[in-house]
Structure formats: C-alpha cells, structure tokens
C-alpha cells in the first residue's frame, strides 16, 4: 500500500439505511462515507441523478430531500435515514412533466448531461415561487451549470412552464 488513497473499501463496515425514494421505501447497505448520490445511482439503481463535480459546484446531482433541493453529492447516504428523496425519475413517473416538455420545446437540452439536475432545481424553484421573474430564475438556478451554455433557453423553458402552470398560454 503506497498511501491512504490506495485503500480499498471492500472491508468497510456497512450500515443499513432505510429511506423513501420516489415514494417507495428502500433499504440499502452502504459504508458511512458513501454519498447519497452514489447510493441512489449504485445501490438504489436510479442513474438519472448525475455525478459530475462531486463537490457542490455544478448541480448535476440535484435531488429533493424532504421536498428541498440539495446537492446529493454533499449528503451522506446515512444522513438520509428516515428521509424522503425525490429524483428526476420520481418527478417523471407518469411520463415527461410539463417542465421537461418545455425544456424540449425551448431547445434547452443540448448534450443533456446537466438536464436532470436543471429540471429538479427548476421544479423546486417553481414549487417555492410559482411565478418567478427572470432574475429570480437566474438566481434560483445559479447552482446548476450547463457546459453547453444553454442558459437562455433554460430560462425560457422555466418561464414557459410557469406561464403554463398559471393557466397562461405560452
């Protein structure tokens, strides 16, 4: 063994975590250092939540934890014991949501990698502020980076969804 970083974690003690994911109770056995992000992708089997910077800078891993948007790379799986997690799969259990449709209509999806996080962040924004101004959208989504720089269209998609939900016609 050359350094602490060469340790493997096969022998780490596992802890059983029971949480609700997209409405279903799930139990997973994870080492204490496993992030919620990795737990969702690898143990629960939901790869929609993306792993990118893994340090809370990019927002690709955004999920709702008890209804609040969080970076799942900055939450330990063991911290989620007894809590409720909603991922992009949970938002779109009945097919594409209005928000996802508006992302497509606006041409906001380029490479697509950041989109699950963008959609979850936008859903949280619209639930907490149903008719956000453009500035509020930009502020609310500032933790979600798009390397294709599709920001204008992402803002338009959120505006269109807000209008649609308020009964408007855009």
């Amino acid at each position, binding site marked *: 063994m050359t350094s602490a970083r060469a340790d493997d974690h096969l022998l780490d003690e596992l802890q059983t975590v029971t949480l609700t994911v997209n409405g279903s109770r799930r139990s997973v056995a994870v*080492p204490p250092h496993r992030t919620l992000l990795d737990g969702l992708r690898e143990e629960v089997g939901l790869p929609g939540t993306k792993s990118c910077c893994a340090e*809370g800078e990019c927002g690709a891993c955004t999920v709702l934890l008890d209804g609040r*948007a969080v970076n799942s790379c900055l939450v330990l799986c063991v911290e989620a014991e007894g809590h409720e997690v909603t991922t992009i799969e949970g938002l779109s259990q009945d097919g594409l949501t209005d928000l996802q449709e508006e992302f497509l209509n606006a041409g906001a999806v380029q490479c697509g990698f950041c989109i699950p996080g963008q959609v979850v962040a936008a859903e*949280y924004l619209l639930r907490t502020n149903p008719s956000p101004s453009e500035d509020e959208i930009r502020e609310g989504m500032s933790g979600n980076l798009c390397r294709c720089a599709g920001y204008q269209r992402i803002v338009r998609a959120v505006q269109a969804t807000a209008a649609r939900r308020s009964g408007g016609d855009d």
Partner: protein
Amino acid sequence: MPNYYRPTTRADALAALAAAGEGARPLVGGTDLLVGLRHHTLEPELLVDLKGVTDLPEPIVVTDDGVRIGPTLTLGELVAHPVVRGWFPALVEAALTVGSVAIRNRASLVANSCNASPAADTAPPLLVHDARVVISSQEGDRTAALEEFFLGPRRTLCGPGELVTRLDLPRPEEGSGSAFRRLTRRRGVDLATVSVAARIDADGHVVLGLGAVGPRPLRTEPSAAVDPADEAGVDRVLDEQLEIASPISDVRGSREYRLAMLRVLAKRAVLAAADRRHPREMAS
C-alpha cells in the same frame, strides 16, 4: 474513512466528541465537510451528526433583545426569516451569496462560522452585528464574542470535545443600518475575493467587518461619528478603518487589487447601510 454517529441527545453528542477528541467532527449541512473528505484535506475518525439531536437550542428563537440561533438553522431558513430580514439586512445579503439555493438548503450558519474560513461570507456581518457564541462541552458552557472566536484560517476557540451550541445576535439599536458588499469572479458558487459588511448607528459611528483580506475575518472598532453625505469625512473614516486589512495574493486576486477593491466596496457598504437607518422607509 470516518465512522458515522447520529446521537439523539446533546449529552450523547458531547460525550462522543469528548471521547474522540481531535478525531471527531460535528456534522450539520456537510457542504464543506464532504468536500474536505473527498479531497482528503479532512480525515476525521468520527462524524457526529447533530441533526438528530432533540435537545440542542431551537434553530431560531426571537426575543426582545435579539435572536438566538441553534446549530441546525440553515442559511435558507435564515434568509427567509422575517425578523432576521428586518434586523440584520447585512447578514441576509451575505447569506444569499453563499453557494446556491441547494447549498443554502443544507448549510448551517453556526457550522459555517465554526469552519472559520477567512473568506466566509457570513462572518463580516456577524462581526458587525456583535455576534456571540456559546461553546459547550461536558464540563459546561462558555461564551465568547465571535471576534475572539476566530483565531486564524480554519482555527477557532472551539477545541476538541467542544461544540458551538448557540450564536446570539443582539437586536440592533434604533436608527442603525447595515449592508454587505462583496466581489467575486462569478455570481454563485464562488468564494469572495473581498467582502465587507458595514453597520452605522444613528450618530454616524461606523463598524466594518472584512472578509478575505486577512488570516481571519476582521472587525474594526467603532469610528468617530461621520455624516455619510460628507464624502471627505467618509474617506477619512475608511482610511483609518481599513488599516487592519492585510490581504494575500492568490488565484482570486492580488494583494493590491484586493486593497483597492476593499476601499470601493467598503464605501458602498457604508453608504448603503446609512440609507437603511430608517427601517420604516425600507419596509415600503
């Protein structure tokens, strides 16, 4: 890799911190701690998650004399609190610049203070608002002014076996105002290049809190009374107040650039704070 412990009582949390000593880290939001774990800059043996503890101080309690903040209050809850918004506008402005919505939904104000980053956005306003902390251990509680609490980069008065269980902010005097200004390279998810909080009382005494221009967040002593309309007078006060700044050059800016921007931001913060001295006008 650390073990994880989620106590339900304050006594159990303090016992675990005492037993593990230097090897223990309290965990609340984890937005800084998990980054440290990932980069191996932090290698604790034990994480003590405070979110399951039922007998810690409430997240926020408002009294006639001020507000008391517990370790589990998130920055998101802080910025949405109507009394905090009315009494501590500089703190709200600063907290709104931390990370992103998702970060603020997890990050704790008290834990952010305990990390003692010299660039912590919440530190300058907490300093100008005369924050005090309660540090608890199995031996009992002690209190300290936040200014004494910050010792150096990532070093505080809170030692092994100790936990900051409360942060108190006294109610600002009638007729005082506060504001926060900062410079970053990009809006959102970036650390401050320079940050300044200013408070000015009804008679024109100015106190500044400075971030990212020294080894720890700095607080100035109250200045002589100044009329914000008197530009030369404000400049004189800033000359004196900003002498304590000793920034370094790094990836976010050179020492010279930081000093120049500090001057600009400090003036803006003082003038904005002065404009807020009459809360009734602000509410409209």
